[in-house]
């Protein structure tokens, strides 16, 4: 499994929540699912990120009942969060494309 690049956890959380309200453990599972279980995330490390995103107004949270019939706090995107997700996705794609292109380039004077 791959280590997360710094700063990418927020993006993953936003992406995971963009598909529908989720509680913390659900977000973890969803990230695993959408990344094909290729990324390693410490379970606890998720929460500072969640609180930070709530504080920035990108996520909102509310207490509810989970599919396991347990009390859980659910997160969903705010309008600002959706906008931010779009921007971040675009900028990530540009960056990733550029880096991939740079790495796939064969040296000319080999």
């Amino acid at each position, binding site marked *: 499994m791959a280590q997360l690049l710094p700063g990418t956890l927020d993006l993953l959380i936003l992406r995971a929540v963009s598909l529908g309200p989720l*509680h*913390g*453990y*659900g977000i973890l599972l969803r990230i695993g699912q959408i990344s094909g279980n290729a990324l390693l995330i*410490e*379970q*606890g*490390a998720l*929460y*500072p*990120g969640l*609180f*930070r995103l709530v*504080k920035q107004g990108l996520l909102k949270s509310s207490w509810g009942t*989970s599919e*396991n019939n*347990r*009390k*859980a*706090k659910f997160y969903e995107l705010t309008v600002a969060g959706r906008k931010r997700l779009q921007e971040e996705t675009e900028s990530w794609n540009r960056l990733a494309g550029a880096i991939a292109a740079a790495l796939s380039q064969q040296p000319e004077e080999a």
Partner: protein
Amino acid sequence: MRLLDSLRFRFAALFQREQMNAEMVDELRSHIAHRADDLERAGMTREDAERRARIEFGGQGKYKEEIHASLGNHLVETIWQDVRLSLRTLRKSPGFLAASVLTLALAISANAVVFSVLNAFLLRPLNVAHPSSLYQLQHANEASSYQSYPDYIDLRDRNRSFDSVMAFTADEVGLDSGQGDPSEIWIEEASGNYFDALGLQPYLGRFFHASEEHGADSAPDIVLSYEYWHTYFHDDRSVVGRVVRLNRHPFTILGVAPQDFNGTLMFFNPAMFVPLVEHPVLGSNDLTTRGDHWVFDVIGYLKPGVTQAQAVADLNGIGKALEKAYPKDESNMAFTLRRPGLYGDYLGQPVKAFMAALMSLTMLILLAACANLGGLFAARAAERSREVALRLALGSTRTRILRSLLTEALLISLAGGAVGLAGSVALLHALTAWRPFTSWPIHLAVNPDANVYIVALLLALVSGLLFGAVPVRQVLDTNPYEVVKAGTGGSSRRRVGVRDILLVAQIAICAVLVTSSLVAVRGMVHSRSAALGFDVEHSMLAEVDLGMAGYTGDRVAPMQKRLMETMQRVPGAQSVALADAVPFGMGVGDAIVFPDSAPDLLPAHAAAKPYLFHVSPDYFRAAGTRLLAGREFQWQDDKDAPRVAVVNEEFARLVFGSANGATGRAFKLKDGTRVEVVGIAEDGKYYNLTEEQQPALFIPILQAPNASTVLLVRAAPGTENAALLLGTAMRRSLRNVDATMPVIIETRAAPLQVMMFGPRMATISLGVLGLMGALLSITGVFGMAAYSVSKRLKELGIRMALGAQRREVLAAALGRPVKLLALGSATGLLLGILAGKVLTYIVYEANSHDPLVLGGVVVAMALLGLLATWIPAQRAMSVNPLILLRDE
């Protein structure tokens, strides 16, 4: 620690941290439960699944901290951590803690006390409506506001610049409240518009008003001051309407003045207020004599929109007109406006000068304390350089270390500030409650207010932080590898450090303070031996106002003679005299005299304005005043004899050109009476120790009867406390003459003490400041020497092991602090000599060039140095090289 816990809880609650924590715990628990559900579904037992889930999740505490950190709400928590860390480290060095807190507390309390006094006397407005537009109508050419009653009325009614012009005068009267035991009290006689114009509301009952005045003795009313009502009438609300007697005349108590109002003069707290029109009943002046300037003070509210210059021009216009209309009575009718609280410039000037000088000296104390603190902090930082280096090496950031140093400084300044403030508040309350004189209602209301607290805390914080920051560069420069490699020695560069400069500065300041306190003490000693022109020892005064006791007019002279005869029979009395006033006593008046040849008696032709004393036969013998020529007064010098006088040398010089041959010559009084000089008395002091030589005029009391009576009785030389025994005997025989007569008996020296109150307070404050300075320089030098010894203990040990003499070891250990001490003292002494000028404001014959003072400073500083280096020196001498070398 319960207090700390509760504080902590409060901080947390402030940020809803508890609630957030609970929510966080719930959320993490929910997460773990969901994970356990999954694990259970995969086949684990519930118990194993939960355990596994918890382990996978890891430390919840760590994540909680991270959450808080991510929210940026950690400020309070971090500060709290810093504080706890600082408290722990400080507790490990109690010596440093005590020294720094005490140093700061000392300086802060000195500053808080002085500032509080300054605040009370000069900054705090009077307790009346619109204090900023209230002015005293002071004479332009002298610091007083005396007027005659007709003058006051003219000023009040003819001016166009003031909303209300009020007048008042202070008087001592005999009060008989019907409970026996008549007492003498100080009252303020105020014009009818007084309370209404000042915008006051009575605490009880009602005030008197302008509309109730209809000429002399038309309003025999009393408004009690709250304090007098409280202490004398014990808060009895039924006093309103009661009739009491003042100088045997009935007066009705109308009400009680508000609690915080004691008249408009700062130091003078009258027992009661009486309408000014009652003055003729209580005193010897009337409301009609144009030339009798008995009204003590005239104050008024400037109209909005009128400038001071316009008001002065307006008043001067009235003054000119009055001088023209009454040329015989009026002079000195040009005005200037001043603040009323300290009687214009009369007290205002000296109090301002004194407070400015005192404030600058206490600021010096604060500076010295700061230098001391800076030295302490720097020494501490140097001692901790190894710890700092270790922390840096282990990954702590420099910011973090600096923050903990600053937190320490902050804690120390808060503690020092709090301790200092507590001390000063106690002192100030004591000062406020203090009644320095029984016969004068002098009262120093210097209770601290919010201003004082704020200034003290600000000073503490600024000085603590400023000098807590001294070691910052030391920390920033620390190279962890160097320090750890080199051991505690650190850098052994011998350059002039911040600490050396601080110490020299501090000692210089302290030497200035010691110099000024010695100058003050010397001045005080000097003033005791000043040529007073009379003998203060072995004599007693008995002050009897016959007017108060109902002896007026023709009954005065026989009663005075009877009193003298009574005194002559008192056992232990050697000589007895009587006067209407004595030098340094109350009610010293003055006269205007004209040369015998003067064409007219206009003020412009006056030859002198001497102090005037009406005295009985035998006065000069009883007072101990030498007669240089001529004779004493006799019983024959009465109303029917030619008018005669004794004058002092200065008077003779001013009026006749020289004291020689002045006897037999004559001068004229204001009323035209021709008076012949029959004796010349030695010069002396009459009102104030620091006064220039003044002319004085003595006139037989039999030729100018006066109800004010001071009996002067000289004790026969003999036992130690002859004078005091005499006093007791005098009281007994005066009772026998008339038991209802209020009498004040005091030693001849007592009124001088009243006059000396200001200078004495000045000497005491300078003395205290000098002591503080000395204390601070001891701690400063001690700190430096102790540090220098402890740092070089190893080196000293090696020197001793190699056979160095004790003297050489001492020189090595203490040479530097002693050199700094000498340098600082020399600088301070020079500055102190220069500062001597400032002291002339406060101190009698301040002379900083006095060899005794200079020698005293040198000796004092040397002693201080010896005291401060004694313990470190002992330590350096007792170094045992073996133990020391084994140690590292």
